[in-house]
């Protein structure tokens, strides 16, 4: 496969641009995504290539961006929308949850709503309480929505393309700290990664860690450290958070007998609890040698101060400690 090094945000730009070149019904809308290129510069150059009919700057109106995407999708377009920050889905929620997610089911299977909502998420930027949240668990609680997240540039490209091609509303969560991350990305414009498939980021035999997004890279750091001490860890990235490929996780836990879920989102009501419950209801339960642990964000808003902000998200040490704990060390 021919590869090219690029940043995560360029990979997202590439995914959108390729899909727009292929399918005239794909359009892109959001706040300041045109000439300005979006709050994080993700769409730089797209306005110039596709023009204002297809790269549409909207007013600061999250409800109508989302609702209009649903209406356009139900009538034949395939809109991609950028929420400037994931935090602003609060304003879009009715249109996302009560409209887009419900149309197909409540209309008896007759509607298709192929829209993609891109959601820059996560802390670490110092933007504090209203611009740093990881609200993916809310979205996973809404049947009718798909929730996807990518932890590397290549996956950003492949998964976003799959999201755009999917006939359902897909929420695509992009951790802002990943935007500048570089990686090898396939140049093939048919490089599409299937939704609903977990990826085993690293094989191992003693502990299974389920994680996604920026924190995955922190997990990798912790894993590298403990492996030097003889603990073998398997790392699974679900990638599609809903509907999740649970089978890969269950199979892994049957092999390792120990599981930890790590995410940046607040612990209470987060996906960690859901994944832990799923494991304990599965056939992997009988193989468990330790309780399933969660290493997650503190149950606080995201603070501004650098040290406080860092204290909210799981650290490498916290992840290592959880590994020692399930290993009884």
């Amino acid at each position: 496969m021919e590869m090219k090094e690029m940043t995560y945000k360029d990979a997202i730009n590439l995914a959108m641009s390729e899909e727009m070149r292929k399918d005239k019904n794909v359009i892109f809308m959001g706040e300041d995504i045109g000439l300005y290129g979006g709050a994080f510069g993700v769409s730089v150059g797209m306005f110039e290539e596709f023009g204002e009919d297809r790269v549409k700057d909207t007013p600061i109106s999250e409800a109508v961006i989302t609702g209009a995407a649903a209406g356009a999708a139900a009538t034949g377009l395939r809109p991609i929308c950028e929420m400037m920050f994931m935090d602003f889905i609060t304003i879009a929620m009715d249109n996302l949850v009560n409209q887009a997610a419900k149309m197909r089911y409540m209309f008896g299977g007759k509607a298709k709503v192929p829209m993609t909502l891109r959601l820059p998420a996560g802390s670490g930027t110092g933007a504090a309480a209203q611009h740093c949240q990881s609200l993916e668990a809310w979205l996973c609680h809404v049947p009718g929505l798909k929730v996807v997240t990518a932890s590397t540039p290549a996956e950003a490209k492949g998964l976003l393309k799959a999201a755009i091609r999917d006939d359902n509303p897909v929420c695509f969560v992009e951790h802002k700290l990943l935007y500048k991350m570089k990686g090898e990305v396939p140049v093939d414009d048919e490089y599409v990664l299937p939704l609903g498939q977990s990826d085993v980021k690293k094989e191992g035999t003693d502990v299974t860690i389920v994680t996604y997004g920026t924190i995955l890279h922190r997990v990798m750091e912790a894993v590298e450290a403990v492996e030097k001490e003889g603990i073998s860890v398997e790392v699974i990235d679900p990638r599609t958070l809903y509907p999740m490929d649970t089978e890969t996780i269950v199979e892994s836990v049957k092999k390792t007998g120990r599981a930890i879920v790590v995410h940046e989102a607040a612990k209470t009501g987060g996906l960690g609890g859901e994944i832990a419950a799923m494991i304990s209801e599965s056939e992997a339960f009988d193989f468990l040698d330790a309780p399933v642990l969660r290493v997650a964000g503190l149950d606080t808003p995201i603070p501004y101060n650098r040290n406080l902000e860092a204290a909210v998200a799981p650290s490498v040490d916290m992840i290592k400690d959880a590994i020692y704990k399930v290993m009884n060390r």
Partner: protein
Amino acid sequence: MSLSKETLMEMYLRMNHARLFEEKVAYFFSRGMVHGTTHLSVGQEASGVASCMALEDGDLASLTHRGHSQAVGFGLDINKMMAELLGKETGYCKGKGGSMHIADIDNGNLGANGIVGGGYCISVGAALTQQYQKTGKLVLCFAGDGSANEGSFHEALNLASVWKLPVIFFIENNLYGMSTPISKHMNITDIADRAKAYGIPGIIVDGNDPIEVYETVNKAAEGVRSGKGPVLIESKTYRWLGHSKSDAQAYRTKEEVQQWKEKDPIARLKKFMLENKIATAEEIEAVEEQARTNMENAVEFANNSPEPPVESVTEDVYA
């Protein structure tokens, strides 16, 4: 005048269907055969039906929770509507939607909406599709007076205006949002005034006059289709019955209701056709009889239709 006899007679048939439909639903409701809730549109038939009659083939519409007249006006099949109200598999939504979600997306009906103001943004998006694909079609977005205080109203009108989208916002001002009179929910008497804030035309019509409703929508549609951008039409009307299933109506007087009953839109259309010698009394009676027969058939169709299989509960969550 742009209205042919054929159109007028069809309008009269649909308005009769709409009234009879609500009467049946009220009856079924009282017998416990329709569950959940329903919002009946008796008295608002000119608003719901005559506005849709002014549409072209291929135009779209989104409806409100008080959407039965609008659906009938748009040309939906009363058999499938009645079946949906009884929760049957043959209903528009296979029994999964009910009164508040009757939809026929394939034919441009974007659905009724259980969320007050929920149709505004969807309509704007559907209008974007029409503009982008240059279909020459428009979207008729129904809404109620109360919904004009939702944020979505403002976001949708503004975006539709700056993008010059082909959408008509048709607000049925029936003077109340549930129990709250308009005087207590906004500090203006005409919602049409709000159009000015978005730089679009705001037109007021007598929502109980089917001819005026038809002609206003028809005329507005011309400009909307030609790319001039959206229009807000405020249709002044009144619901005869309570807001929904249980409503003691303590917030209004019997006299007020009676005054509005005297402005019955169906009687008005009949009078118009007779006075202008468009149709004879016999012809009109024949249409009324036809409407009654059709409604009995719809009830029979719905009653005889199967319940959806329980296994269908997990179907159609995703495409």
